[in-house]
């Protein structure tokens, strides 16, 4: 999937919102991101030392169970964290070398939607119920580009055609509730692609859809990515979807990334017990018989994060050191694992050897 030759038009510009880009920098780089929510019951560290990188044309999956901080990390990149109670308390989000967290709000706003776009899980609530879909798509062009009303409507029809909404022209003035779930998600996609962004974040885009419709939407996303060469961050809890579309995967647990690497490698030779646990507990379509092996217990409440390695109460490999010391995200020194891999476990090497 990285074999695409097209490059997003955005990448030819040498400035972003008036700031010079670093031509050698990766498309998007998240460094040691920390996001906290101040709640009456205590502080929730929803993202802790989150690191990842995304290149043009690449699909990075962020995989994790609910509450692990996937959406928060996406919202931090977009700059749309609910604040208060949330706040980004550390780290950097570099888009082509420019740290978005340091930009003044008016420049930051110009990056949103134009350079980096997002689509959400539930398009019914993510689209404004009181405006037509045409209005909501055209609004992107009207506000960012100052396009005239009639021109913006024309572009909106083109976009709706592009995401394969049948009879786009007639449906331009329909309201979101008049579309089916799958079509609404297409409207969301059309809207997010209106300005040809270089990065698209899809936060559980198909979780609310049936498999047959999910397959349609995932196909569409892959096709659009191949056309535009944008980088895609796909947030999901579905290991199947990840295996089918991602180039690389970052596994999140309790606000941290616990393992990242190339998709085939991570699925072949997982080096973190949580990744292993996810795979063992998953019933698979092409696997018959046997018994699932669940991870005991349930994900921690982030106001009471376990000491040391947050996974230790559920980990079958845990030792005393896991209770005392939080493992760093590091390259496991095992021969079967290449240096594109990172894992946050004290015993990654031993786990690889045991396989």
């Amino acid at each position, binding site marked *: 999937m990285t074999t695409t030759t097209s490059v997003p038009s955005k990448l030819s510009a040498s400035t972003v919102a008036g700031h010079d880009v670093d031509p050698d920098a990766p498309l998007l780089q998240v460094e040691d991101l920390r996001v906290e929510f101040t709640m009456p019951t205590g502080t929730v560290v929803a993202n802790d030392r989150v690191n990842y990188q995304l290149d043009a044309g690449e699909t990075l999956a962020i995989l994790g*169970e*609910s509450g692990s901080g996937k959406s928060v990390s996406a919202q931090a990149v977009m700059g749309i964290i609910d604040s208060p109670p949330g706040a980004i308390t550390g780290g950097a989000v570099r888009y082509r070398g420019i740290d978005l967290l340091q930009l003044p709000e008016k420049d930051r706003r110009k990056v949103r939607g134009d350079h980096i776009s997002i689509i959400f899980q539930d398009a019914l609530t993510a689209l404004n119920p009181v405006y037509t879909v045409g209005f909501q798509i055209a609004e992107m062009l009207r506000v960012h580009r100052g396009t005239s009303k009639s021109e913006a409507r024309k572009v909106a029809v083109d976009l709706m055609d592009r995401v394969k909404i049948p009879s786009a022209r007639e449906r331009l003035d329909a309201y979101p509730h008049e579309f*089916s*779930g*799958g*079509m609404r998600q297409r409207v969301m996609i059309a809207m997010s692609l209106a300005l040809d962004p270089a990065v698209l974040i899809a936060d559980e885009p198909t979780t609310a859809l*049936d*498999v*047959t*419709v*999910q*397959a*349609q939407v995932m*196909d569409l996303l892959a096709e659009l990515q191949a056309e535009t060469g944008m980088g895609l961050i796909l947030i999901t*809890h*579905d*290991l*199947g*979807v*990840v*295996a*089918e579309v991602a180039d690389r995967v970052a596994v999140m647990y309790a606000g941290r990334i616990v393992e990242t690497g190339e*998709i*085939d490698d991570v*699925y*072949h030779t997982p080096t973190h017990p949580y990744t*292993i*646990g*996810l*795979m*063992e*507990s*998953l*019933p*698979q*379509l*092409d*696997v*018959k*018989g*046997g*018994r*699932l*092996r*669940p*991870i*005991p217990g*349930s*994900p921690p409440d982030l106001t009471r994060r376990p000491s040391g390695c947050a996974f230790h109460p*559920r980990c*079958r*490999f845990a030792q005393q050191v896991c209770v005392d010391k939080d493992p760093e995200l590091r390259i496991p020194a095992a021969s079967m694992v290449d240096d594109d891999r990172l894992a946050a476990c004290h*015993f990654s090497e*031993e*786990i690889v*050897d*045991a*396989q």
Partner: protein
Amino acid sequence: MPSDATDAEQQMQPAEQQMTVDRSGDEPVLEVRNLVKHFPLTQGIVFKRTIGQIQAVDDVSFSIRPGETLGLVGESGSGKSTVARTLLRLHEPTGGEAFFQGQDLFTMSNKDMRAARRDIQMIFQDPYSSLNPRMTVGDIIAEPWRIHTGILPRNEQRDRVAELLDLVGLNPDHINRFPHQFSGGQRQRIGVARALAVNPSVIIADEPVSALDVSVQAQVVNLLEDIQAEFGIAFLFIAHDLSVVRHIADRVAVMYLGKIIEIGTEEQIYDRPTHPYTQALLSAAPIADPRRRAASERILLQGDLPSPSNPPSGCRFRTRCWLFNQMKEEDEATGGNRTDKCINEPPELAERDYDHPSACHYPQERHIIETVDRAEVTTPGDDLP
């Protein structure tokens, strides 16, 4: 790896026979015949007029034997929950019969129905909304004993609740806690304990694990398997997740727009599906291993589920059927008219050229997934070197 089809079949044959031998003597514990449930579609505020019927369930038949799990799969809106709710008479059926231990649930007296409700328990998708937030877990689990008096004397109830909590993997000391003090998976365990309290012979589970995360989902799936093995309960397991159903079900029924379009053993449905919809459904479901990424080309269905108030004529699946489109294209070249039958004649759910029923005029077996045995999926052991 038994990738060779004949190899796989040989492996399967004995298992299948064994199953039929095992259970052929058993009368079905639940037998549903021609179940129909239509909801009136009304318009108007002052004067309500019925302008149509939502054909939520239309002529559905199946049976479940003691200790067996029948999986019911299909897209949302295909009528799965309506089947479940109608069986428990939470909706009055429009037509059909449902024999439970030889008696028709739909014609029995209220008194008998109350007894039947005890024997047929239900587990819901959202454990939270089905548990009364103001009752303690102990009271929730003991509630069936208050409704169906005479099962268990009052002074024994507390001990039995503790036993049940232990059985479903909850701490018996938590008997006085409230539902909101438990996580999603634990709440689902409470739901299971409540269902088990009255020793049911059938459990209808409507998407019991759909709201749970994978790691917790596996715990509940294992729990359901365990209680089935221990108590020989028959399950009607409803889910939209084909993988979970494959894992837990002995037999599987696939629903589309109110009808069962294919039914068979787990092997028949997953390894040798004959209905174009089953095939498309299987091909759309992602496989969680990049090594085993669908080798065959994916069958993409067009569009969404049509409205159940105005289903297509003839075969209800024809508006999205890839085989229909393919035949139409071929026939245009050759002057054939095979698709006329799809448009005009509703296909019966019947065995045609294959060993299990399928509601398609032109069934053909198609191999969609390469099944592997779980034993071949390696994972590291418990001990590190």
